[in-house]
């Protein structure tokens, strides 16, 4: 029997980036906000202190800061005719758990999507014709424009103290920035990070073959910074332990380093850790949420009433919660009806490893220290002759040189033995890797639903992921890999090794934690779970945040867009919903 708790205005499921932003905005609007986090409280001191955090084995290899499959995982299969089996340990993607969520262990690579990304179907049909889009590709416009999101992208840049070089300020192209980006209202709050040797060589090589490289925008501070909330950050020391680690130096933007010092002091905000939300509760009409049910670490069940429920968990988990709570019609790929779980997407990555004569000292780096080109992202180039939809950036990142997982060896090196050892000694300090980071479109047969067999610790069904790479993505990724190899060659290396992504999608090797979809946003309730304000069509006092609302994935890291959408939704709740609670979009 659940213990019923005192009602709050807003309950947030999860306490990562989106919950922190949402809580900050809604408490400012005077609401009583409660965040329920299933993990533990974590802060820079003591959890990420430099006396312990720079431990590759504990954090990067043994998954110290990530979700534990023993408590929450999904089942996976490549196609509908296979039996999905559990992801028994992490591999392909690494969701976070605990206060700060994946915002603790991200790199800080902060991108905006292109204006065309938000209108990909109408734009593609207009430029290339309707038949250019394969029939099983279920991409759709987002129902929102880049111009609507721009102020919110800007808010996140300034919250985080992003270090970068603008490429387009109010339509004026800026020397040294990304000439393809959408117009931004002003430059970045901080200058770009210092460059590593490898990024300097990449920059020179990319220019020599006619591309326009630029420093990647980094939520790693290039200088001391005080954000608009008055929270201070210290300059990055290039220690090389961002990705998969917490920052011990107050230099990587995370909820802990940008929002929590202010939010946690507010009388109208509270949070509970060890609180695992298992259901969103509905009244008898099924059209109104009354709050959530959660289980604490002792197994006690609580009912937390709330006027507004906002799903702020990791992408797939939001979809799982809606499915378990029977909110929205579950997607059925056979009949192509329903919406919840539809349009799961991912990203497709590849690399070209470069082996040089000079010392690269790869251990000096930062999570978002990189140099990139954007010529082949979105619709920045003519897709007509190429015959695929989508694109991606090509970058050389100097994220660190942690030796277990971040070493590169020339093609043909033995996997073990004296030859392996010699290659390690010869190449560790003198190598780098160029990454391609490509979009993945959504398809009729790429989706999430409830697994018929496997259960979680509460006896609820696990989420089932059905996903594979389609020919469109392999073609696009191969195209990007060829361009990356052009740059690699121009770096005049001893040798380089192109590693295209081929074959079926595999759950084993790490690729990226940029999982999207399942709760797609859009203008049509027949093909979307939430409207342009991230409000559920079916239950208007439930909102869904995160990359779960992306109708397909773009060729950029998602956090900037995830954060901008959260600010946008918070503004809609504050300025529209509170004045007149109910559907914000009528159809």
């Amino acid at each position, binding site marked *: 029997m659940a213990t019923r708790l005192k009602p709050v205005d807003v309950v947030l499921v999860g306490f990562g980036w989106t919950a922190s932003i949402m809580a900050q905005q809604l408490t400012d609007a005077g609401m009583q906000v409660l965040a329920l986090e299933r993990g533990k409280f974590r802060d820079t001191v003591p959890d990420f202190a430099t006396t312990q955090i720079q431990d590759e*084995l504990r954090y990067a290899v043994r998954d110290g800061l990530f979700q534990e*499959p023993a408590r929450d995982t999904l089942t996976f299969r490549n196609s509908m005719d296979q039996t999905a089996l559990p992801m028994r340990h992490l591999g392909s993607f690494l969701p976070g758990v605990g206060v700060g969520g994946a915002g603790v262990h991200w790199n800080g690579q902060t991108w905006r999507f292109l204006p065309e990304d938000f209108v990909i179907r109408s734009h593609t049909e207009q430029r290339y014709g309707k038949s250019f889009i394969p029939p099983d590709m279920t991409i759709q416009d987002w129902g929102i424009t880049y111009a609507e999101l721009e102020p919110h992208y800007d808010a996140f840049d300034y919250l985080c103290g992003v270090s970068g070089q603008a490429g387009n300020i109010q339509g004026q192209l800026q020397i040294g920035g990304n000439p393809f980006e959408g117009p931004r209202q002003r430059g970045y709050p901080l200058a770009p990070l210092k*460059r*590593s*040797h490898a990024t300097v060589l990449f920059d020179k090589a990319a220019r020599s073959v006619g591309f326009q490289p630029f420093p990647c925008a980094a939520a790693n501070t290039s200088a001391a910074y005080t954000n608009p909330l008055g929270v201070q950050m210290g300059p990055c020391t290039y220690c090389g332990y961002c990705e998969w680690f917490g920052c011990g130096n107050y230099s990587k933007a995370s909820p802990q380093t940008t929002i929590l010092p202010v939010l946690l002091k507010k009388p109208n905000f509270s949070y509970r850790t060890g609180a695992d939300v298992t259901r969103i509760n509905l009244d008898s009409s099924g059209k109104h949420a009354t709050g959530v049910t959660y289980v604490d670490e002792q197994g006690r069940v609580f009912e937390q009433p709330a006027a507004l429920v906002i799903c702020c968990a990791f992408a797939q988990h939001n979809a799982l919660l809606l499915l378990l709570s029977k909110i929205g019609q579950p997607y059925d790929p056979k009949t192509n009806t329903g919406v919840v779980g539809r349009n799961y997407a991912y990203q497709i990555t590849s690399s070209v490893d470069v082996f040089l004569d000079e010392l690269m000292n790869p251990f000096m780096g930062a999570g978002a220290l990189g140099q990139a080109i954007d010529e082949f992202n979105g619709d920045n180039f003519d897709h007509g002759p190429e015959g695929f939809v989508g694109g991606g950036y090509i970058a050389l990142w100097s994220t660190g040189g942690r030796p277990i997982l971040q070493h590169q060896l020339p093609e043909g090196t033995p996997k073990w033995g*004296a030859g392996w050892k*010699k290659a390690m000694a010869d190449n560790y300090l003198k190598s780098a890797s160029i990454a391609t980071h490509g979009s993945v479109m959504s398809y009729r047969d790429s989706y999430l639903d409830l697994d018929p067999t496997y259960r979680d610790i509460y006896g609820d069904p696990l989420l089932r992921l059905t996903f594979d790479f389609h020919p469109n993505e392999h073609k696009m990724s191969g195209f990007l890999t060829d361009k990356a190899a052009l740059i690699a060659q121009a770096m005049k290396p001893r040798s380089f090794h192109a590693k295209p992504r081929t074959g079926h999608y595999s759950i084993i090797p790490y690729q990226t934690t940029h999982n999207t979809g399942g709760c797609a946003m859009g203008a049509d309730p027949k093909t979307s779970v939430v409207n342009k304000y991230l409000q559920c069509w079916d239950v208007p006092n439930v909102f869904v945040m995160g990359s779960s609302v992306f109708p397909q994935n773009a060729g950029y890291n998602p956090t900037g867009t995830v954060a901008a959408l959260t600010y946008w939704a918070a503004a809609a709740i504050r300025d529209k919903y509170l004045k007149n609670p109910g559907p914000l979009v009528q159809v």
Partner: protein
Amino acid sequence: MSIPMSRRSLIKAALVLPVVGVVGCGQHEDARASGPIARRFFSEAEQRWVEAATARLIPDEEDGLGAGGAHVALFIDRQLAGPYGHAHRWYMQGPWEKGTDEQGYQLKLTPAELYRTAIRNIEDWCRQNHQKSFVELSAVQQDDVLHGLEGGDIKLADVPAKAFFTMLLSNTVEGFLADPMYGGNYQFAGWKLVGFPGPRYNYVAEIEQYGKPYTQPTVGILGRDGSLLREG
């Protein structure tokens, strides 16, 4: 087994690890400087098997210490005795099916159980085919066995050989290159081989010194003494 690691109270009889390349390291003397270290998971025979196999995966040669000198077997023993060995974070509920290559690890065995079973199976295979234990084979024969496991040509009675080999190789590389406080990478053997200076924390002054070697001495999380072992 939970044998305290205080220096002079070690049980030196059966439960001991042979130690290679012991060097006293001043004030922060490692337990290893004073004698052999108690095993936590492996039997003596298993320990010898892992020492022999890892010594082929990363050989001790003139270019530097390998898995033997880096004490990789000690590292693996500690890992298998701890949460990793017990698949503490893994989803371990059935039903159990083989699955496709893309679906990843689907064995009912924890890493510790996989080692124990696979080593027993490989020993059986070696005795059947060579009338000897793996540790008694020549280096060339040992390499042939390891290649047979890696490629799946050697079929083991109870477990897939490839799955075990993949785990053994991963753990060997980890033990060679993880912070020495976990027992491997002894005296920074792995880090010194490749040129990684350890978690140095601040490269503001050096990152733009393109092409110049980084000359500060190697450090670990527990300091400059590369022989420290964090127990417990």
